[in-house]
């Protein structure tokens, strides 16, 4: 996961480990300093600095004009962001949980996502929608979803999802500077909030100064020969853990961190599967018509020669139950990745 850090030609500096929350916070602050058109809107992003900790300190530094607490009116403030962006501003808005998309989807998929297309590129919508995703901590049916495919299915939004702090800062910087609407998803279990546990490997070294991680480029976080494990966000860490265990069993897994859902780095995936001949996609979103299926279809339709069927390990097609045993039963995890990957390599699952 640190390949991109070392390649960032910032050697000889002291390591600085940040959570994703802090990395996001830094990206926003730096872009706000650099560009007066950037401003932030959302629920509880002012005085408390965002319930996901992105906007801490911004109210003090930039004032209430550029750091705007909103009413609980997602349609209004996301729609307003489109209008402001159309006039040259670069708003960052927060949809507190992705699960709330149902009250404001038109603003997202018709207003923001189609703005360029049906105005022939004249009404640009350079804006970022930040949103929290993911379950695993018993937040039940309306606060635990990922919904990658819900957004990826509809054209006009770029979509990114960092698995670590370095990528979070770089992807968000790219997103803020992009002239198109970008949906920036962050996984609650990687975020580094005080009130939720954080996967330790998401906390990485982050350079002080601004840098971009390009949108649309996947990261091969572990090269391997025997099987390709494709993950994003939280499942990258599960895949890495599984890869470690698999290697002790003689299986050399390649792990891909997608980083970007739209555009999807299909070449990186196909290259990897062409090499390994086997693929398991790990996706904590619903299965049906999901991202994992899309990735399988992408490889299948090219007729890449395979050593095993293409497989996916996903969250099943049920809402997220509250009770821990049920939720944990439903979520992907390293154990199940190991099991599925071994099946692929040994042919047991055929």
């Amino acid at each position, binding site marked *: 996961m640190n390949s991109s850090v070392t390649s960032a030609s910032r050697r000889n500096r002291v390591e600085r480990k940040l959570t994703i929350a802090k990395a996001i916070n830094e990206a926003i602050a730096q872009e706000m300093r650099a560009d007066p058109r950037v401003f932030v809107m959302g629920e509880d992003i002012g005085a408390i600095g965002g319930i996901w900790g992105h906007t801490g300190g911004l109210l003090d530094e930039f004032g209430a004009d550029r750091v705007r607490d*909103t009413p609980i009116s997602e349609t209004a403030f996301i729609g307003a962001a489109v209008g402001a962006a159309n006039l040259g501003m670069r708003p960052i808005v927060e949809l507190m949980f992705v699960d709330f998309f149902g*009250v404001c989807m038109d603003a997202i998929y018709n207003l923001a996502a189609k703005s360029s297309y049906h105005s022939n590129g004249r009404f640009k919508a350079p804006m970022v929608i930040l949103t929290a995703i993911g379950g695993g901590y018993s*937040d*039940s*049916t309306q606060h635990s979803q990922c919904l990658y495919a819900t957004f990826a299915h509809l054209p006009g939004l770029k979509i990114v999802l960092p698995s670590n702090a370095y990528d979070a800062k770089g992807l968000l910087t790219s997103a803020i500077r992009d002239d198109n609407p970008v949906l920036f998803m962050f996984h609650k279990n990687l975020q580094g909030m005080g009130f939720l546990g954080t996967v330790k490997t998401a906390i990485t070294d982050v350079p002080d100064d601004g840098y971009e991680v390009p949108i649309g480029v996947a990261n091969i976080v572990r090269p391997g020969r025997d099987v390709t494990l494709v993950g994003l966000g939280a499942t990258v860490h599960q895949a890495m853990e599984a890869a470690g265990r698999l290697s002790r069993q003689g299986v050399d897994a390649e792990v891909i961190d997608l980083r970007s859902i739209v555009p999807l780095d299909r070449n990186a995936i196909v290259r990897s599967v062409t090499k390994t001949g086997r693929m398991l996609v790990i996706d904590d979103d619903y299965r049906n018509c999901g991202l994992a299926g899309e990735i399988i279809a992408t490889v299948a339709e090219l007729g890449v020669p395979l050593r095993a069927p293409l497989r996916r390990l996903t969250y099943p097609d049920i809402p997220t139950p*509250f009770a821990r045993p*049920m939720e944990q039963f439903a979520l992907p995890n390293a154990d199940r990745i190991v099991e599925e990957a071994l099946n692929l390599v040994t042919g047991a699952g055929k």
Partner: protein
Amino acid sequence: MEGLVPTATQRLWMYETMAKIRLYEARIAEAYMEGKRPLFNMAKGPLPGEMHLCDGQEPCAVGLSAHLGPEDYLACHHRSHAQAIAKGVDLRRMTAEIFGRSAGLSGGRGGHMHLFDFDKLFWTSGIIGQNMAPAVGAALARKLNGESGIAVACIGEGAVNQGGFHEAMNLAGVWKLPFLCIIEDNGWAVSVPKHASTAVPENHVRAAAYGMPGEHVPGNDPDRVFEAVGRAVMRARAGEGPTLIEIQTTRLQGHFMGDTEGYLPPDELAGKPALDPLPHYRERLRGDGILSPDLEATIDARIRHELDDAFEFALAAPEPEGSAALETLFV
């Protein structure tokens, strides 16, 4: 108007229910913190997830449900323990649900934010403003079938700025449904104060936008809530259409457990205990000769007994099997 002043029995019921709610929340809070110390982490402990307590908002719940029967539908939201208890939701199964047990109202699928009791027609949604329309639909069903029963939606003052509120209110107004919207105005939506989010100081003025009467109930006072709701319920039952009531209340705790309320003005934080409606109401009932030390002790014992029973039931109930997650997507 007549018949709207609560009787001594009704006031006693309101008091006892308020006290029960308060103790219930205290026990939930205690259970919730298990496994979350010294480092708070909402994923940990036997009772994980979010937890929104109702302390201080009991008057809204009791003043409302004093008028409701099991045929009346009540749609609540993320902060609904008080309303559930006042509506008479089965305390054992509600507690089991909050603990994620298979004996829970929803077999552990819902948890604290998704309390559903079909027998008491108690319903919730965790999405702000989205409980309005189902309540309007329930009112429509009653009207279409010529059945008795009205429908009520409770929402926070922050939720009133959500589009779902507007659409549902207009629908209830234009169709003259037996519907009542209760706004529990605790002044805050998480960290955002009402004046920063709402273009009017008081939301009951919005009733005029829907051709229905609006009432404002100050003081977080069960008796006044009782009176205002009573008028609205009478109108609804008489086929005279819907009403909007905004009740001024107090969120004695943070938005959810773990919220330290650093955003509150210090004087507001310091002033909170003085706003607690429970001791005020107790004093009033004592003064009115309705509560006596003996009666208080009886009530207290009854509440403790009921809560002991509910928590014992819940904690003794088994956790669901993981694979139960796959059930009831479709009926």
